[in-house]
């Protein structure tokens, strides 16, 4: 099934700096991307996500490891010999060429006949709904239009893989939402493989089939948006993706399917993830994570995990209402839909064993 891995990084390391003070931009990164997948690299700046993208694009040489494209080792191949195109963060449109000349450039390099080029360019302009902009220069276009031209140029000769380096970051918030949907639709129509770099978790979650969360040059977790949000591999992923409440305690009891966390004066039952990488042991310290929207306020039915506290503060942001609740175990946040009726005062919190997860097995770090 080797063919299934369209892009495959095999323990790739990229080092900057000197031998005495090496700075690892990537540390033994292993990744595979399937054909037709929308794959995101999610991380903050300095996490190595852009370096990973540049390495696939052919702009960097790794110190160790191999890069495979369609089963072929391309580690040493320069960018112009790789069947992979990039949409740069700045779009990188050629300022002295018109939109048509920009879009035709890859075809011109491939030495296609003039007439075929003209036809393909016209088709592409139509497809990206910019047929009237052909004679403009990049400087005469809006941000959203430039983005479309950059996409059109990168896609016109159908690369195996399209790499996108934070392509929405230069756009206004409202346009970004719109372009995001277009991007997803484009990927589904063309059925091409997209590798997408972003620091915006909401963007990554909304767009991707799978996400690789990166931190300090390492891949922390690879999975679908749901897997990453609901079953973060460790404390870092739990904190980085979404908001979360954490409770510290010690493992008091273990069964095949559940664990019991003992805190001061309370104990909580947790559903164990069958594939969790965390080796739980009775007696060790552990951190429990509960997402704010999983906590139920004054639940109707008796839930296995319960905690009472004081609702002290409400933050209203339209779609959502965030309640701050002071409990004996610390401050917890609860999120509800915006029009929920809540009042400050005494509240009862409850949640189910599979609404929470152990994300760290030693609180003594």
């Amino acid at each position: 099934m080797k063919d299934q891995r369209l892009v495959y990084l095999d323990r790739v390391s990229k080092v900057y700096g000197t031998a005495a003070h090496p700075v690892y931009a990537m540390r033994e990164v292993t990744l595979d991307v399937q054909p037709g997948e929308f794959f995101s690299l999610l991380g903050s700046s300095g996490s190595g996500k852009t370096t990973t993208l540049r390495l696939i694009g052919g702009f960097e040489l790794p110190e160790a490891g191999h890069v495979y494209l369609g089963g072929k080792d391309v580690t040493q191949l320069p960018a112009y010999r790789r069947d992979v195109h990039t949409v740069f963060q700045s779009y990188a449109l050629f300022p002295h060429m018109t939109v048509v000349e920009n879009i035709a450039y890859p075809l011109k390099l491939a030495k296609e006949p003039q007439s075929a080029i003209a036809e393909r360019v016209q088709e592409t302009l139509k497809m990206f709904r910019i047929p009237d902009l052909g004679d403009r220069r990049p400087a005469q276009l809006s941000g959203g239009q430039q983005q479309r031209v950059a996409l059109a140029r990168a896609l016109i000769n159908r690369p195996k893989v399209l790499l996108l380096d934070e392509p929405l970051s230069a756009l206004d918030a409202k346009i970004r939402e719109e372009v995001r949907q277009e991007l997803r639709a484009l990927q589904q129509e063309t059925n091409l493989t997209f590798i997408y770099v972003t620091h915006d978790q909401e963007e990554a979650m909304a767009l991707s089939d799978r996400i690789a969360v990166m931190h300090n040059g390492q891949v922390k977790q690879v999975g679908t948006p749901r897997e990453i949000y609901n079953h973060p591999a460790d404390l870092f992923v739990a904190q980085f993706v979404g908001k979360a409440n954490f409770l510290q305690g010690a493992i008091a009891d273990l069964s095949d399917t559940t664990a019991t966390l003992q805190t001061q004066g309370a104990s909580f039952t947790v559903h164990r993830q069958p594939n969790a990488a965390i080796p739980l042991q009775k007696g060790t310290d552990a951190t429990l994570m509960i997402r704010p929207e999983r906590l139920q306020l004054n639940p109707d039915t008796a839930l296995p995990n319960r905690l009472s506290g004081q609702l002290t503060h409400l933050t209203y942001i339209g779609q959502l209402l965030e309640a701050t609740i002071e409990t004996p175990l610390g401050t917890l946040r609860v999120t509800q839909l915006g029009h929920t009726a809540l009042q400050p005062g005494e509240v009862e919190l409850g949640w189910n064993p599979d609404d929470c997860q152990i994300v760290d097995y030693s609180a003594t770090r």
Partner: protein
Amino acid sequence: MSESLPAPSATVQTSIPTESGMVPQPRSARPSWLLAGWATLVFGFLYLPIAVLVMMSFNDSRILALPIRGLTFDWYITALQDEPLRDSLWNSLKVAGIATVLATVFGLLAAFAIYRYRFPGRSAFRIALNLPILLPGIVTGVAMLAFFSDLGFGLSLGTVILGHVVFGIPVALGPLLTRLGQFPRSLEEAAYDLGAKPAQVFLDVVFPYIRSAVIAAALLAFTLSFDEVVVTIFLTGRDNTLPMEIWGRLRTSITPEIAAIATVVLLTSTVLVLLSQRISARDSA
């Protein structure tokens, strides 16, 4: 807003219509008579002498007295018919032309080296290249003279060209480095990414981007060479360049012919300098 707010009275209302055409000054604007006075002083001092020179060249008398009684082009015709002057103009054009080509090519190479490669001593390299333009011309002139005579080189227009190239390189380097510094590396990467090989990347993307700076650099180098006096004096043999010829004749007194040829040099230099500034400014805007 609470209901009890007093309604704004009619008198307030009538006092605040927008005065038509009034565009407010920013708070920090001071009275500008100080600025105007000072500008007059500086420009008077700077440009009055030049005005006098130009008037002299058009005055129909050998003695300049205001107001000018009559205008004439005679001095320009006299200057044109003067064979040594014509020869020196031709020499100047030859020297400046060759020096410009060499300085621009070497400047382009140096600019690329500085821009592209991170090598040890990169910034020292850059300063070392810039120093000639800032060092006293008389010292570098003396040094080159000593060097050439030590090597047994005969002085000629060739040695003048070499000298001008040394000064031309840093002058050409300025606009080239500025423009290359603005060049977004991602444009180059995008070209590679779309399938262009290194030579194509240079021709299709890099050169179009810096073309205006290359022209500006060449114009500047030409102007510098055309106007240079100090180093030229040390390095030239029997052949004179135009500024040298003017210089030689000035030893006695300023004649209207000299004023005419100086006016031509002035006009040419001004046009070339303004042209190069306009070209640089157009693209970096």
